């Protein structure tokens, strides 16, 4: 499924979509600013698609980064 995800072209993130997302976070952007953000957002979304191929699955994303006993060494 992930291979399919990676090989399929992704839909364009339009200024209207970004404008709407921003509004949901309380940020009122002009469509022009939203368009500028779109150019910067696309590489981040592509990067996330790459991370999605790493089978990170059930790795807990919160809590200590390493087993606590390492700190005591």
């Amino acid at each position, binding site marked *: 499924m992930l291979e399919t995800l990676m090989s399929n072209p992704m839909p364009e993130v339009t200024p209207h979509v*970004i404008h709407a*997302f*921003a509004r949901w*976070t*309380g*940020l*009122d*952007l002009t469509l022009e*600013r939203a368009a*500028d*953000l779109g150019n*910067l*957002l696309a590489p*981040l*979304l592509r*990067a*996330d698609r*790459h*991370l*999605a191929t*790493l089978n*990170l699955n059930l*790795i*807990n*994303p*919160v809590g200590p*980064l*390493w087993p606590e006993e*390492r*700190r*005591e*060494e």
Partner: protein
Amino acid sequence: MKNDPLMQSIAETGRLYRSGTLSPVEITEWTLTRIEQLNPGLNAFITVMAEPARQQAEQAERELGSGLDRGPLHGIPVALKDLIDVQGTPTTCGSRIRAQDHPTRTAPLARRLEEGGAVLVGKTNMLEFAYGVPHPDYGQTNNPHDLGRTAGGSSGGSAAAVAAGLCFAAVGTDTGGSIRIPAAYCGVAGLKPTYGLVDLTGVFPLAWSLDHAGPLARSSEDARLLLEALTGTAICWSGPIDTLKVGVLRLHAEGPEMQLEVAEVFASTCHALQTAGIKLRDVQVPDLEWADEALMNILLPEASAAHSGWLQERPSDYAPLTRIQLELGCVLPAVAYVRAQQYRRRLVQRFLAVFGDVDVLISPTVAWVAPAEDPVIAGDEGAAEARRSGPHNLTGFPALSVRAGVGAAGLPVGVQVITPPGQDALALALGSAIERLTAGGSNDSTSADW
């Protein structure tokens, strides 16, 4: 410069204090005079705390004279990046938004320095909110080795002040390389300690899960003394250096962005270590190539969350590029953030596996010497600048940049030393060895010679 009392080590200065040859009041006055002379060109300080510094120096002199010894930093001029709270002094964060902020409390890390008798001479310039660009109200910190170039970011003021002898050591913060990159550009030592080792209470955040505070100094040994004062714990490596197994982080030792002069200094450093009997081997860390992206997908939304109120109320008070980065973090999907947090935990496991085979890792700190201006974080050049430092913010492992040589134009080149978590002392010990073996690329002088 060799006999310049403002460029000598912290330990030597302390010896001269205790023998009565030199006094904290003298050193502090000379420091303040040098700041007055050189800061207009360097732009390293936002606030000079001249009167409080004089009072602290007088107190240190009285105490040392009466036999009360607070330790290695007693009477030593130290600077703080201007996102660290000191009661009664503005914490601007290099921004217009916080220009009038007057904290009512002193950050615990600064309080520790005060309790250790340090003389706090001022608050240093930085990229706006430590986020990639200087705000036009403050401007860029210039590099003491070439005033036409940046000192680096975001702790550029701390690095430039240390390199030019405007203080003996300084505190910076590091979220993707903000201690180590300016340390490399300015030719000083800069340590991003183990995540959580230095208390960040009273330090304005950039991205909570990636932020670290740590020392910048003219040597690893001076950085060690500052780290001890910041943490209140002994930071000491007593093991041998020549039996260490050192891994060369191959992916970061090369790359299309690597300048030839940096590659040459790094190769010379490897050769010097081998000549000293230290065993080197190449190592690969699986999945490391995704670190640039993961760093941004964590840093951007965390920073945007911290700024959401001002972003709505005072957007035009940010520098334009800071504002765009903050807006960008607002529209990144939450799953991208979570996935990047999962990735960094995978990366930790990858690095710990490598540290089963080697004791220490080394790489260049940055692929190039100081450029004219700092690149924007959320861009290709910004990603390339932080490519060798950012992964260690993801893992939280200690990473130290030390001066290992100079490039063709006489600009410093840094080498990075990375150790397992909690082994900050080992990083500093190997850093000292590299400084000794390479002589930092010769004892060149900075523009501060004028």
